[in-house]
């Protein structure tokens, strides 16, 4: 295996809330290789975004990383000081967010916002930055970029704002891009264009991409490998084709069964029984899916096997679905 762009090991995150301590992430292990695109999927509250925020060091003040490391090159992102981290963010590892309209500064021209990042990370002189910002807008497919650079976010459409976000994220040629639901709220054509822009850049520069989504269809289409999260655990991680051909974790199977396909009818789709367990509970079950699982056994109360962060396959289940014979 090529050396990973990012290796996350034993990452645990807790939130202190009025209702008690929420164990949002528990011993999360995964990696993304150089040039690889992985999708992190799971329902709302499964910890996808928290994982990304923890890696970026932009967690809410109420959150605390209780264990683990996130290795990027020679650097453990979870242990570096604030200033080193600020220098790495945007340069080595960049992030784009959902809701591009609110993710941009409402009272600053988008060209200036791109220029801010260029000045910080890309060895650009203040006089050259505006021109470079216009060029970046052009690379993300914005027509009439010189005029659009002078626009404020409220003067642009949602899709246009997301392109600006991508231009900001890619300004310093990062080696890793985290895209947190980048196409949620955009129409389907715009979705495809946005994803194409990201994919092209990844291909051209060998950038690794972590793509966070709850849209399994989009993940299947765009990712080399899929990491499935449930209630702060990684339950399964496998190359996309294998995962869809033969899901082994009952939760993955349920997610796939709940995803509409081109030929499926409403009656074919199955909902997943129950909801996420209360993560505030003092004693959480070893398998956080056990409460919703139809394949639960007596032995499921035993601790789950530890997932190897560097492996491309991972499975956290005592009673997985049978491995399908070679397809």
């Amino acid at each position, binding site marked *: 295996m090529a050396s990973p762009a990012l290796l996350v090991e034993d990452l645990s995150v807790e939130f202190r809330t009025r209702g008690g301590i929420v164990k949002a992430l528990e011993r999360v292990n995964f990696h993304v290789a150089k040039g690889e695109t992985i999708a992190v999927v799971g329902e709302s509250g499964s910890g996808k975004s928290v994982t990304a925020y923890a890696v*970026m060091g*932009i967690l*809410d*003040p109420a959150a605390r990383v209780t264990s683990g490391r996130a290795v990027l090159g020679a650097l453990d992102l979870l242990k570096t000081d*604030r200033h080193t*981290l*600020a*220098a*790495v*963010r*945007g*340069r080595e590892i*960049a*992030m784009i*967010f959902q*809701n591009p309209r*609110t*993710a*941009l*500064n*409402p*009272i*600053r021209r988008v060209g200036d916002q791109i220029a*801010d*990042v260029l000045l*910080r*990370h890309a060895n650009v002189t203040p006089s050259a930055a505006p021109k470079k910002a216009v060029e970046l807008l052009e690379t993300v497919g914005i027509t009439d970029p010189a005029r659009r650079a002078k626009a*404020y976010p*409220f003067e642009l459409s949602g899709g246009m704002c997301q392109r600006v*976000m991508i231009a*900001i*994220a890619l300004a310093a040629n990062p080696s890793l891009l985290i895209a947190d639901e980048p196409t949620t709220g955009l129409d389907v054509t715009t979705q495809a264009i946005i994803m194409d822009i990201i994919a092209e850049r990844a291909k051209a520069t060998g950038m690794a991409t972590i793509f966070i989504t709850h849209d399994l269809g989009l993940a299947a289409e765009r990712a080399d490998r899929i990491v499935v999260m449930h209630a702060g655990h990684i339950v399964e991680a496998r190359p996309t084709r294998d995962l869809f051909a033969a899901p082994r974790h009952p939760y993955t199977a349920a997610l796939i069964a709940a995803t509409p396909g081109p030929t499926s009818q409403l009656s074919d789709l199955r909902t997943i029984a129950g909801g996420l367990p209360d993560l505030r509970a003092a004693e959480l079950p070893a398998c956080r899916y056990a409460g919703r699982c139809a394949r639960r056994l007596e032995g499921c109360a035993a601790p789950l096997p530890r997932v190897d962060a560097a492996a491309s396959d991972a499975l956290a289940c005592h009673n997985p679905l049978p491995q399908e014979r070679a397809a």
Partner: protein
Amino acid sequence: MLSLILNRLMLAIPSLIGVVIVTFLLTRALPGDPAAYFAGPAATEQAIAEIRAKLGTDRPLIEQFGRYVKDLARGELGQSLTTGQPVSREIATRLPASAELTLIGLLLAVLLAVPMGILAATKPGSAVDHITRVVSTAGVSLPVFFTGLLLVYVFYFRLGWAPSPVGRLDVFLSPPPHVTGFYLVDALLARDGEVFVGALKQLALPALTLSIFALAPIARMTRASMLAVLSSDFVRTARASGLSPAKVVVTYAFRNAVLPVITTLGMVLSFLLGANVLVEKVFAWPGIGSFAVEALIASDFAPVQGFVLTMAALYVTLNLLIDIAYGLIDPRVRLDS
């Protein structure tokens, strides 16, 4: 932008007309007869009636109002009965005194409160946060005359650092030639260092008194507004882009957080302008607030009406300035005009 300004000025006209009518009626409705007041306790009925006729207060209300409006149209605010001076001249000399005091006090408050609010918001629960809370609670709960007297006691009586708290300038100095009416500005224009320092010394304690009072709302609003903006999506983006902490806090967060702070500033300023009577009393400051109160006690109509009208005009101007500031800071506001 220009059409916005014109638009706002047009909208101000009805309010100013309202102010003219209401102040006129209010001063007439007040208890006390100016004629009786000026005739003195020993005056006969006939003497009082003569004064009343001279003042015109024996005429029907509508006629008095008509005469008042006619004078106003010629720019005359009438004469003060107590001082015998035209009200417009009184206001012209006293308003700059109040304005200078208020503006310096407000400036001082902003210079202290805004950094305090920002630091408190960026480090909630820290020592700065707690100090801000204590100072702003103290600033609000201590009455201005008390802080004023306390400062006089400490800095004049005990330490002797401040000059005696009487008026705008030491009696041995003569005021600078009148240009703006602001002694600090006029002294600078006249290149008179001695007068400048003298005026500054007199100004220090009353301005500090006002600023302690004005500190609280500004610091609190800055803190609250910064907290809201710091948790917004675009600040998260700025952080994720690795922008320096100073850039995130100042360019991204503070510029967005400043709008409610400006609104608060406008409110504080307009409040201070009219309500610094107590400070003016404590420091024998020849301002407009004490002038209006004295006139009110003496049932001296003209100065009271002049005062209220001036204040109303100031509020209108102030609100216009705030609107312009909004438009300059937030591009979304420009569209609405």
